[in-house]
């Protein structure tokens, strides 16, 4: 093969074949291309298509395999296409570990979120997807409850920020804290002085900073956050954010208004009007703050 190189740069001969395929007459060139290697016996040229076929097969296998893996990863945990998985969830379990809720206590669609302030997916969900459900919260269809699921092995400030949420809830400003903390996630995630930064965000969100700092710089709510994590483990939560809608784990977290609508309509159709109130006894803010802490709110 090597000796035949001399012909390779002749455009008429090389175009349309890798090199030394039978030269085809080309109208614009007029004169037939020279054949310097004509006398050299050479193997018959291979059909072009077959030489590329193995390549396309390999490429296709890699593409399909990769797409399959990515598809399985989507939604976390590599679950099958089934979107809802029943979980064992008793009102007693929820009463034992109150989350932080918004919406009517007796709303027919009870949505629980297990999340970690330091998880990027939770940030995405909190800032772009969860606001879309607000209209159903406002009209009494949905009650949305936050449960901490701090991934302590990988997130150094996960527990701190989770406790901060409980501290903000003392001032009835959990959702303001929630938004500010997620919005600044990139700043505090790996910071060593995250507590100070959280105080600043809290003050910016209208919280009483002194009360917030006093709560944060203690071990207050350590137990509640730990219990919330354990509840998540008991319910089969493997990653964050995980949503549980009326006792069913949502495998694909909604990201558009249409997703939410489909999810909520499926529940309002199937759920009886007299849906059990999971934590109705605890009032609008299930983590009942001490009255003294309430008075500290501005």
């Amino acid at each position, binding site marked *: 093969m090597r000796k035949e190189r001399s012909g390779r740069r002749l455009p008429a001969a090389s175009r349309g074949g890798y090199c030394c395929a039978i030269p085809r007459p080309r109208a614009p060139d007029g004169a037939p291309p020279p054949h310097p290697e004509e006398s050299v016996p050479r193997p018959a040229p291979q059909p072009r298509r077959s030489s590329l076929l193995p390549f396309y097969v390999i490429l296709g296998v890699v593409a399909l395999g990769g797409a399959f893996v990515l598809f399985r990863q989507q939604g976390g945990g590599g679950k099958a296409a089934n979107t809802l998985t029943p979980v064992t969830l008793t009102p007693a379990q929820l009463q034992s570990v109150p989350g932080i809720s918004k919406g009517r206590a007796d709303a027919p669609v009870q949505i629980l979120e297990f999340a970690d302030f330091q*998880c990027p997916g939770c940030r995405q969900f909190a800032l772009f997807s969860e606001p879309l459900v607000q209209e159903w919260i406002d009209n009494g269809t949905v009650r949305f409850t936050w449960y901490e699921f701090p991934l302590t092995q*990988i997130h150094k400030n996960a527990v701190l920020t989770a406790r901060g949420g409980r501290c903000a809830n003392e001032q009835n400003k959990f959702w303001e804290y929630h938004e500010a903390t997620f919005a600044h996630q990139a700043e505090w995630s790996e910071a060593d002085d995250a507590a100070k930064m959280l105080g600043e965000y809290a003050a910016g969100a209208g919280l009483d900073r002194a009360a917030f700092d006093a709560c944060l710089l203690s071990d207050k709510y350590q137990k509640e956050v730990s219990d919330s994590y354990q509840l998540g483990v008991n319910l089969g939560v493997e990653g964050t954010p995980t949503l549980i809608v009326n006792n069913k784990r949502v495998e694909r977290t909604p990201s558009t208004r249409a997703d939410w609508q489909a999810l909520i309509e499926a529940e309002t159709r199937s759920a009886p009007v007299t849906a059990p109130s999971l934590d109705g006894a605890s009032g609008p803010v299930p983590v009942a703050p001490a009255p003294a802490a309430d008075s500290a709110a501005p």
Partner: protein
Amino acid sequence: MSVSDAAGLAETLEDRPPATRMAIAVLALVGLLVASYLSMYKLGMLGVIQCQIGSCETVQASAYSYFLGLPVAYYGVGAYAAILAVALAGVQPRFARERWVALALFGLSLVGVLFSAYLTYLEAAVIHAWCQWCVISAVLITLIFLLSLPGLRQAR
């Protein structure tokens, strides 16, 4: 692979379908999948990131996972998709000898190598954490760059 090895490879491959291009296409496809995975994570479509080695979350959650306001993984998707497209064109007999194919593969992968080197420097010196997917991507783009060299010589 040294430059002389690459030159030798170029001569060996000259009269055949360009195997280096095929290799580049396969590597770029793998890179595209890796970058897509990291992008899906950034989009919040994955719960947790799979990471057997290193601490992907630390790297992915750091401020350095953004470049000019976009997650670096998005640039990876764009770059690998472009390399894949050019490499696929480059294995077609019609374009195999075209100079722009070789130059485009060289140019794209050179930018990719430099960007990867910057990201790897950040992992080593600034974030002090490694992300296995980022390291895999750095290896892939380096291989693609080396494989683009023989074609460059051939196209001259």
